[in-house]
C-alpha cells in the first residue's frame, strides 16, 4: 500500500526526494500518511481534490484485494 502511494506521489510532484510515506497499520484499517514539499501540496491534492480522490479510489481498490481498509491522509 505504502509503495503504491509513494510511486504515484513521486510521479506527480516536482520534488520526489521530499516525498515521505508512512503506514500505520491497525487491525482492520491502516492509515497511510503522505507528506510532500509545501510547493507540491497542490499537485497531490489537485483541483477540487481530484488527484487526492483518485489516489484514494485506487488505494481502496488495492485494499479490497487484501480485505482491509486503508485511509490516505495528506499531511501539511
Amino acid at each position: 500500500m505504502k509503495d503504491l502511494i509513494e510511486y504515484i506521489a513521486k510521479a506527480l510532484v516536482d520534488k520526489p526526494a521530499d516525498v515521505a510515506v508512512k503506514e500505520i497499520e491497525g487491525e482492520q484499517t491502516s492509515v497511510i500518511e503522505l507528506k510532500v514539499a509545501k510547493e507540491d501540496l497542490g499537485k497531490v491534492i489537485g483541483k477540487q481534490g481530484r488527484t487526492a480522490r483518485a489516489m484514494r479510489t485506487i488505494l481502496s481498490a488495492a485494499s479490497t484485494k487484501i480485505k482491509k481498509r486503508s485511509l490516505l491522509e495528506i499531511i501539511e
Partner: protein
Amino acid sequence: MESYEFQGKNTQDAIEHARRELGLPAERMEIEIIEPGSAGIFGLVGGRKAKIRVKIKQEPPDEPVGEESPSSIPSVKPSAQETTEGVEFARSSLEKILSLIPVETAQVKSEQTDGTIRLTISGDSSGLLIGRRGKTLDALQFIVNRIVNKVFEERLQVIVDSENYRQRHHDSIVDMAMKLSDKAKISKKPVSTAPLNPYDRRLIHIALREDGEVETKSRGDGTMKKIVIIPRKSSSGQPGRARSREDI
C-alpha cells in the same frame, strides 16, 4: 534484466539520451523516473538534473528491430518521437501502478491515434480495476494522465480501458438519454438525469443534439451536473411529429 541510468536537463532529454546511447526504440525501454529534475530558481540556484532508469525489454519476436539505429534518430520528427515515448511511458506507468496494487495477472496493451493513447488492461482482475460504475478505472486514467502530461510538453490524452468498459458505458449512457427523452416527450415535462461528470454529459448532449423535439441543458455547479432534457413546445402535438419514437 539489464538496467541503465541516464541523466538530462529534463525527463524528456534523459529519455532522448537513453535512446541515443542504447540505440533502441522507445518501445523496448522500460522507463522509470528516479528524479524528474528541476530548473531551479531562475535557472540559477538549486537546479537538478533529471535521472531515469531504463530496463531493456526482450525483443518482440515478430518485430523487425534493426531498422532503428542511432544514426536514424535525428531524422525522426520530434513530435512523432515524443508520442512513441509517450505511449511507452504511459504504459509503463500504468503497469507499475498495477504491479503495486498488486494485480500480477494484468496485462496492458497500448495503441495510439494522434494525441490519444489507449491503454487496455486484460486479466482476471478487471472487475476490481473497473470498480463501481468505472470509478477505479476513471481514477487510474486520471492519475496516468497526470503523470504523462507532467513529463511531456505535448498534450497527450490517455484512455484507460478494460473489458471494453468504455464502449459499454458509452452505450448505456446513450441508451439512458434515449429513454429519458422519450419520457420527456410523452409527459411534455422536463426530465432530469442524475449528476454526471463532464464526459458523460457530453455524450448525452451529442446523443440528443439531432433530436428536434427536445433540448438539453446542464444544471448545477462544479464538475458533477445534472442534465435537464426539455421537450420543445413548437410543432409537437401536431400530426406531423413522425419522429417521435411512440409513433414508430
